[in-house]
């Protein structure tokens, strides 16, 4: 702990302040911090002059930063300490060609060449189009059959490849390979004019437009020294909660549809539309795009909008309550949800799950409580009662969060302060040689962006982390010894982002 620098989310610090310790010291610090129950918010490589450095942002009750210089390789912390490092180390290997020595399962994350020109960590030839070229984990035996699903799926869902090793209907192992949506978002963000940043961030994961954009705008605000007035913060809080409600309501409907229980699927589908329309009322876009801008919001919420939202909440709340009752009290639905896709608290803790997936397994972490932004310091936290880690718990957590979000929005609406005025995107000068980390509780869980600026205030490194990055492994673990026919249900109960992961 001695070397770690305590930082605050959403506050810029000079890059020279980040402690840069020798690799051995870095490993020891990380091991003891994560071993003591800490979690990783960000762990990534970046170029500083001619060196490649690693920067770790970790959290327990507070937030800490630590850096180190790496050459061609470093001892894997996944092997030595915790699975929490697993994907982060693979990502570093992929992006910089730096090998985590002894990593138990070193394979590509997104299938792209590294930017340092070092030999590829996985020996891939990127002239070949598909990322399928590596030995999948296989279970031997004459009774074992392998089912490969995707990357092209039925319906309008994103591409991802799933390999099941099954004995009959029972899944012994599920391996998830993503990367088909890789667009190079992190690199893109360092090369475009500042004006385009929020627009790109809104497209990192289409269903988390507000969550990601909020992280981006807070970071720019910290680096450009902008302050946000209270009225704008109220609108941002409302928007983030509306996004949460839309997605949770939609997912509860989809969960219902996946077990062939139609009525709630239809009702929730409609109710989701009502909430999307509230975002439309707020900013002119059903997914809340173009609402949040550095320094405030692009639309001032008027009394008329307050009334529309309040009326709709009054109408929708009892409806949601009734449909939830219909869903959760149906015995046949309970039979499907309970004890399906269980992630024990122990496994969830080891993997470091976040968001509702973590809370359903008893990991209470909620970034709104621990690292409050906007108006979250003023509202009470959401309490989750069900922590069994199964599909039922994940569904219940969503129900509780919907109700909580409605009360948060009501509190925010009763705050009659208008935003000072619409803020549009303009060029700003960012603080040079600075670093900022922003954290928000998006609907899926902890969304975090980390920006490093260079000597003239240009963005040198833009690191994005979607909560899905933590949680995909949770889905793979949830499927162990489950029936393969329950995969869609488990998948929907996590509902992780493909493009948020692939960047």
């Amino acid at each position, binding site marked *: 702990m001695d070397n770690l620098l305590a930082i605050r989310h959403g506050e810029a610090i000079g890059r020279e302040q980040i402690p840069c310790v020798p690799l051995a010291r870095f490993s020891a610090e990380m091991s003891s911090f994560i071993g003591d129950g800490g979690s990783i918010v960000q762990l990534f490589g970046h170029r500083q002059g001619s060196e490649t450095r690693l920067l770790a942002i970790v959290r327990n009750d507070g937030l800490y930063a630590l850096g180190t210089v790496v050459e061609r390789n470093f001892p894997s912390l996944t092997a030595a300490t915790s699975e929490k490092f697993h994907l982060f180390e693979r990502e570093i290997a992929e992006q910089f060609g730096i090998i985590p020595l002894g990593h138990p399962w070193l394979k590509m994350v997104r299938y792209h060449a590294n930017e340092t020109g070092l030999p590829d960590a996985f020996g891939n030839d990127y002239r070949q189009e598909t990322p399928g070229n590596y030995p999948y984990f296989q279970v031997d035996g004459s009774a074992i059959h392998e089912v490969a699903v995707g990357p092209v799926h039925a319906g309008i869902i994103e591409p991802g490849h799933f390999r099941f090793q099954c004995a009959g209907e029972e899944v012994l192992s599920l391996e998830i390979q993503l990367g088909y949506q890789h667009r190079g978002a992190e690199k893109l963000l360092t090369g475009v004019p500042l004006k385009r940043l929020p627009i790109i961030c809104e497209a990192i994961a289409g269903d988390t437009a507000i969550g990601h954009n909020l992280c981006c705008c807070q970071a720019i605000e910290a680096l450009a020294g902008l302050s946000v007035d209270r009225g704008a913060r109220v609108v941002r809080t409302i928007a983030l909660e509306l996004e949460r409600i839309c997605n949770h309501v939609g997912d509860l409907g989809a969960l219902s549809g996946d077990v062939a229980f139609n009525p709630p699927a239809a009702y929730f589908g409609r109710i989701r539309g009502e909430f999307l329309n509230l975002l439309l009322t707020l900013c002119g876009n059903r997914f809340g795009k173009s609402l949040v801008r550095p320094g405030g919001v692009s639309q001032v919420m008027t009394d008329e909008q307050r009334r529309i939202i309040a009326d709709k909440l009054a109408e929708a709340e009892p409806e949601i309550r009734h449909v939830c009752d219909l869903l959760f009290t149906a015995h046949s639905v309970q039979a499907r949800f309970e004890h399906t896709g269980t992630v024990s608290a122990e496994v969830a803790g080891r993997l470091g799950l976040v968001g509702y997936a973590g809370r359903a397994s008893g990991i209470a972490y909620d970034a709104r409580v621990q690292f409050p932004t906007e108006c979250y310091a003023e509202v009470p936290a959401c309490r989750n009662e069900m922590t069994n880690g199964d599909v039922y718990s994940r569904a219940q957590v969503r129900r509780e969060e919907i109700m909580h979000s409605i009360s948060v929005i009501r509190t925010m609406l009763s705050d009659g302060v208008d935003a000072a005025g619409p803020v549009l995107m303009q060029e700003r000068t960012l603080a040079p040689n600075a670093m900022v980390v922003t954290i928000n509780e998006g609907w899926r869980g902890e969304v975090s962006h980390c920006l490093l600026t260079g000597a003239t205030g240009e963005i040198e490194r833009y690191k994005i982390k979607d909560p899905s990055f933590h949680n995909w492994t949770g889905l793979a673990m949830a499927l162990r010894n489950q029936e393969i*026919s329950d995969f869609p249900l488990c998948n929907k109960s996590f509902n992780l982002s493909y493009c948020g992961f692939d960047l």
Partner: protein
Amino acid sequence: MESILSFGVALLVAPLFPGIILKVKAFFAGKKGPPLLIKYYTLVKLLRKGFVYSTSTSLVFRMGPIVVCATALMALLFFPFGGVAPLLFFQGDVIVLFYVMGLGRFFMVIAALDTASPFEGMGAAREAFFGTLAEASIFTMLILFYRMNGSLSLAGYFTGPEAISQTAPAGALLLLVIVALFMVLLAENSRVPVDDPATHLELTMIHEVMILDHSGPDLALIEYGSFCKLLFYASFVAMLIYPFHQFGPVLAMALFYGAVALVYVAIGITESIMARLKMNLVPKYILTSFTLAFFAVILSMGISQ
């Protein structure tokens, strides 16, 4: 003449009734739902399309749809709709018939296996397993019917003065059989709670996943075959609820199809008020229907010694 007409009517209305299920489900979901004639439109649409065959498939794959449809039609040939004598009948035809339908299932399964898709293999395994269990149920019912009227023919069950009826001495036992047969109907025709005809999720499918590779007119044949199969089972249930043979042929037909429509409404309601079973509970579900039928047989031993 009547027999030919009744067979023709059955062929004509088979795609109508699944539309009723969709309407009922839409009603429960607060939607308008697709038009009642949707399945006819689907068939016409499919018939106007071309065939697409995977290069990894063989003749077996192409034979699947034809046999599936032909066996389903054959079952209808023997069925006395509304108590009207069927086109064909002979002593023991029920046994042949259920195995003819088994042949349809066999070809469906090997056509699915022929594609070498892991999904279709999975669906085929489920279909074969659950179908086998349902057979036990069905034949137990046939034992009961034999005990009740000494016939081994569908025409024998439902036509003439000896027809099976709830007013017969052991008729109350039919209540158990109606429930059991309805359960088998849901299982055999890929309905909720055994299968979900509306899902797009290959891993959870049973019937739908086996026909993923069939296209155009082939798919139309399979679809039409499954409409006929569903009509066969629904008619069976309707005839057990009430034998219509004592009415005149026209009235009997009208009442009979009214009853059949009610069976389809019941299917729609079942699908709306319950979720699917977990896959590993499906055998228990089917064996429950077997237990009911078996119980009825045991009770019949006390009544009709």
